[in-house]
């Protein structure tokens, strides 16, 4: 496992990836844009987990989640992978005065270690409707990672 990297190493063009479960996206009228329920308050309590593009591709995030559910690696029937661009996220945090901190948090998971693991901390210290709406606005599906209905 690598040591955590400082926040300045998150470059503007980097992305964070996060799985969106079928229970959530199945409720949407269409999959053209990400809706505010793409993450839940409960999941964000200790920090919202995302994977940093410096160490992971969207397929790695998908494979990891699919393995947990004993699904084939590239299966897109349950999870889609959303991405947040670091530059857009920083601007969103600044414009809305969010107290959100981005913290690299490499984790030993079962196999292999997850060096990409990163946390968006303090996400619940503001109006949750506001933070959900704004993060949904800057989120998009990672290329080729839209779930298959």
């Amino acid at each position, binding site marked *: 496992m690598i040591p955590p990297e400082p926040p300045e190493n998150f470059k503007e063009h980097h992305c964070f990836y996060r799985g969106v479960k079928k229970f*959530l996206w199945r409720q*949407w009228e269409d999959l053209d844009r990400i809706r*505010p*329920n793409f993450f839940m*308050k409960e999941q964000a309590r200790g920090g919202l987990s995302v994977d940093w593009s410096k160490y992971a591709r969207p397929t790695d995030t998908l494979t990891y989640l699919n393995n947990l559910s004993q699904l084939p690696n590239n299966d897109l029937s349950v999870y889609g992978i959303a991405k947040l661009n670091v530059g857009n996220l920083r601007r969103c945090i600044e414009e809305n005065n969010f107290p959100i901190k981005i913290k690299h948090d490499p984790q030993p998971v079962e196999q292999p270690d997850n060096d990409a693991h990163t946390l968006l901390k303090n996400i619940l210290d503001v*109006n949750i*409707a*506001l933070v959900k*709406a704004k993060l949904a606005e800057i989120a998009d599906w990672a290329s080729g990672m839209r779930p298959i209905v």
Partner: protein
Amino acid sequence: MIEKSLKFLIEPIWIKPKEKEYWTKEHLVEQEFNIITIKSRHNVKIDQLKEKFQRLSTFINELENLEAVHSLSLKTLKLLESVIEKLRREFIDVIVPSIYLDEDGSINVEWRNHIFNLVIYLPIDSETIHLFGEHFGHPEDFLDIRMNLSLIESNLVNWLKKIKISRT
């Protein structure tokens, strides 16, 4: 004659015109048309809203805390019905919002078009509702409040009235 039929049609949402000169035949005919249109649109909207909650209940059935979520869903439906009804009385024709569940049963209401974006978050474990609204191009109308469910309705109605979403 027109006035008589109009009285029947508009009840109970009669709004007295401010100026006497508006009491012309043309004005009354126009008002009659508007009222009929708004009433029928309103009924369609309430039906659409109920359909959305009906659809939501299929997802609620997949959750563990069924009863609590159903109860929150009912409260949300009542709130939205009441807001839409109050707006109708003000001649404001509003779109029907989208409703999404979190996996813990919390409810997200997303009210969005090219004029405004409004998100209401109703947590399953608290009576404090989070409300965020933005009126595109009007930063002065920014809405960022957290308050008890019992107080949210008037704030919601007032904000939607203020931004004049689409006055028929």
